[in-house]
């Protein structure tokens, strides 16, 4: 069974992240992703970027489901941390 740490490594391998947090139970995972790559992109395109990185592993069901909790730029992330 795939672990949250592995899912984190899969995402990090395909997307340059300044902050990346993945939680999950082996089936359903929850990711918070902060990356410069999201600048100027709508949320839907940010989610597409993340899903694209792990697409093969979603299709072969190695990762059953990934919910994206947040997909923010470093600026948005900093503002929100206050």
């Amino acid at each position, binding site marked *: 069974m795939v672990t949250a740490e592995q899912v984190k490594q899969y995402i990090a391998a395909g997307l340059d992240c300044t902050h990346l947090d993945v939680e999950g139970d082996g089936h359903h995972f929850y990711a918070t992703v902060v990356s410069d790559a999201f600048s100027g992109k709508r*949320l*839907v395109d940010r*989610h597409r970027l993340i899903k694209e990185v792990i697409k093969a592993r979603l299709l072969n069901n190695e990762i059953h489901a990934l*919910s*994206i*909790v947040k*997909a923010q730029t470093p600026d948005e992330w900093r503002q929100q941390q206050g």
Partner: protein
Amino acid sequence: MDTQQLIKQTVTENPVVLYMKGSAQFPQCGFSSRAVQLIKACGVNKFVTVDVLADPLVRQGIKDYANWPTIPQLYVKGEFIGGSDILAEMYQNGELQTLLQEFAV
């Protein structure tokens, strides 16, 4: 009319459309239910829902239309906004309220 044309007509002729499993009153899936709750939480009570379980052609067709693999899917003024994760994140940061403001009662 083929399915893609039908979908295009539906999302352009109605300002707020949610493709979902079940109806707003009786959602058949937790993600669809969450999407309905988020739209209502923005004060929008009148919006069109399309039950994809009622038509296999639409169920597949809507995934092709948006090039997005999952349901629910929200469209506002013809534009694909996202699924339930995206609606939740937009609601949290206030974007969804802004987007739907003009349709709130």
